């Protein structure tokens, strides 16, 4: 898993916490419980929320020596997924999200064309013309929602996968 993704996931989970809870973690400065990246992220969030970030207590590092090697090993583990590539997943999810808009716009263009055609030929009483307009709009909305859902679904699956790996 890429570092940016891990950072984004830590950021999201820290962002959900109350300011008091973040302040408690920040001031306690327990590096056995939280990684250095997490403190950077907490500092960033607190700065945004309260402006002035209070000083930290002396850092707690009881397992520091052992942790360095273990963390490195853990990071190696985290960068290994067996069945899929997180970068490919993100690429597909982002592209799907973009094409949701593109496909929606193309169908909208089709609907606009049918409408102008119906206006110019005064065919609004023609059921086929009305059906073609409704179909183009409906198809655009349907695929927009499906593609957006697929994009979000992929990210949710990756989140699940990441959490299941941490639990392991």
């Amino acid at each position, binding site marked *: 898993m890429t570092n940016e993704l891990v950072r984004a996931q830590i950021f999201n989970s820290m962002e959900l916490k109350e300011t008091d809870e973040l302040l408690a973690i920040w001031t306690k400065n327990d590096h056995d419980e939280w990684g250095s990246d997490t403190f950077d992220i907490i500092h960033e969030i607190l700065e945004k929320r309260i402006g002035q970030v209070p000083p930290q207590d002396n850092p707690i590092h009881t397992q520091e020596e052992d942790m360095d090697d273990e963390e490195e090993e853990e990071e190696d583990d985290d960068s290994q997924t*067996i069945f899929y590539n997180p970068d490919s997943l993100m690429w597909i999810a982002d592209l799907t999200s973009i094409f949701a808009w593109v496909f929606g716009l193309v169908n909208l263009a089709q609907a606009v064309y049918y409408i102008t055609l119906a206006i110019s030929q005064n065919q609004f009483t023609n059921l086929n013309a009305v059906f073609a307009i409704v179909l183009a709009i409906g198809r655009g909305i349907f695929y927009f929602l499906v593609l957006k859902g697929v994009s979000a679904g992929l990210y949710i699956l990756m989140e699940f996968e990441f959490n*299941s790996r941490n639990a392991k």
Partner: protein
Amino acid sequence: MFSNDSSDMLDEEGAYYAPKRLSLIASVSKAVSWLVLLVYLLGVIFSVYTIVGETQSGAFHPDPYTYISIVATLITGVVYFLLLQAFAIGINVLMEIEFNIRARKGASS
């Protein structure tokens, strides 16, 4: 395609599904996605080729709908490609989750 680890894991049967078969479905889905994209691309190329031929012979009268249709065909192909790719990746991620949970269960027992 997969590492040795994954080959070993694929050999482990799940209670409700066969990992190898699921993995095969994901691989086929990926391959079909490229095929679908290729077919749609060929369709678009054929349409453009027809329009160019008709324009040269003077038989083609520019019509916005024709252009919108070509773009729509191309985008439809890309959308199907993305949906099939997403389906394949989704299956693989689900398998990864399942194996992670199984490993956790194995470690705790």
